[in-house]
């Protein structure tokens, strides 16, 4: 049975939540895509950036690029939280249901200062983490047999 990308997202969030320090520091919690208006800072968002599938005859490898960004009103806090995310995810072994994780690495870093609805400056720091997972494809089993019938 082929599994989709949901277990990968789940494993990533699970890993992030496993870091107690990070979890307690993120007042605005963890959100997929974007956080609703009014969510407190600091907060974290994640989302799938790309996910091409590579097939061989017997297996499938997924290269998932995940955006993981922290948002804070304080640049130092944003950098510290980003460092915590990096320490948690970089070269981590994610427990992806039905798939084995090959790598989980940060492949790019970005810093995008922005302003929120109230005009306050928001520091957005993070990057793209590449997660490779591997799973075997279901194969068709073949067998042959012969039977002798005895008529009495």
């Amino acid at each position, binding site marked *: 049975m082929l599994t989709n990308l949901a277990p990968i997202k789940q494993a990533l969030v699970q890993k992030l939540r496993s870091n107690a320090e990070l979890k307690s520091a993120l007042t605005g919690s963890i959100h997929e895509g*974007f956080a609703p208006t009014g969510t407190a800072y600091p907060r974290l968002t994640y989302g799938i950036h*790309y996910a091409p599938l590579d097939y061989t005859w017997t297996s499938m490898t997924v290269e998932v690029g995940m955006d993981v960004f922290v948002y804070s009103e304080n640049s130092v806090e944003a950098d510290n939280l980003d460092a915590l995310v990096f320490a948690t995810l970089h070269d981590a072994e994610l427990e992806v249901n039905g798939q084995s994780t090959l790598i989980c690495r940060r492949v790019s870093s970005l810093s995008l200062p922005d302003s929120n609805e109230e005009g306050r400056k928001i520091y957005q720091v993070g990057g*793209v983490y590449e997660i490779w997972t591997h799973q075997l494809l279901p194969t068709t089993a073949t067998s042959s047999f012969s039977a002798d019938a005895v008529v009495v």
Partner: protein
Amino acid sequence: MAGILNRDLLQKRVDKAREAAFDELSFAVVKIAKQRAPVRRVESGGPRARYKTAPTSLKAAAFDAAKQYKYRANRQRTALEARSRALTSLYEARVRVRRRGEGNRAIVLGQFTRTKARSVRVAATRGAPRMSIASKRGFKPASGVGGYAGIFGGYEGANKTFMNSLTSRGRYELRRQKNSAVVALDKLGKITTVPANVHQIQLGGRLKASIDVLNQTDTSVVVGTTVPYALYVEFPTSHNAAQPFLLPALKTVKRSVRSVVKKHLLAQGLVVKG
């Protein structure tokens, strides 16, 4: 049989193959990125909403909700509440029928999709030789370059029907570009031949139109965009989710690099092992 290795000839063939492979790969990245790049909605309208009568239970619940509305939080009955009740009874608590993919559907004009089309649209042509005639007629849909093209006498001469058919974003873009020469792209993103005296106004698709090969050297090709807000589309911001278009394109093409290089080396008569 002895063969003489001509190093210069070999190098030339390798260079030729490399150039051809670069061209093919960069074209593929540009093409996929253009397909993925979002286009702001510049034209209002869309498929008309369809309604059906609500089921009895839902209808009863809607009436109850409307009746109770005025008592909520001990507020006085306002015009809004009255309107809510009137609408509920007038339309018998209709339910909007949402069709699959409705949000992405577009009005089809000829062979082009208009409202939420992800293709580049050229709204109008200014300064064309036919301008004086066209300005009398106002906006006129015509088969021309880009999604839909029409000729009218500049922004000032655009008729109200045309202006009203645009979203506020569309009107803003029209105002902004009224004095600028904008390169028009056709539906496939190719630059069309534009007469020197014709300035074309492009509505929507600025990001999409800007995706191209930015730099090419012997060993690398840079595909990207010069639009300053591209970064905030490719990556998420504190307001919006990401709408990635460049990295996914690169990742999609990456897997075919080996086969493309091999193909072009073979085309140059070079034997490729592995």
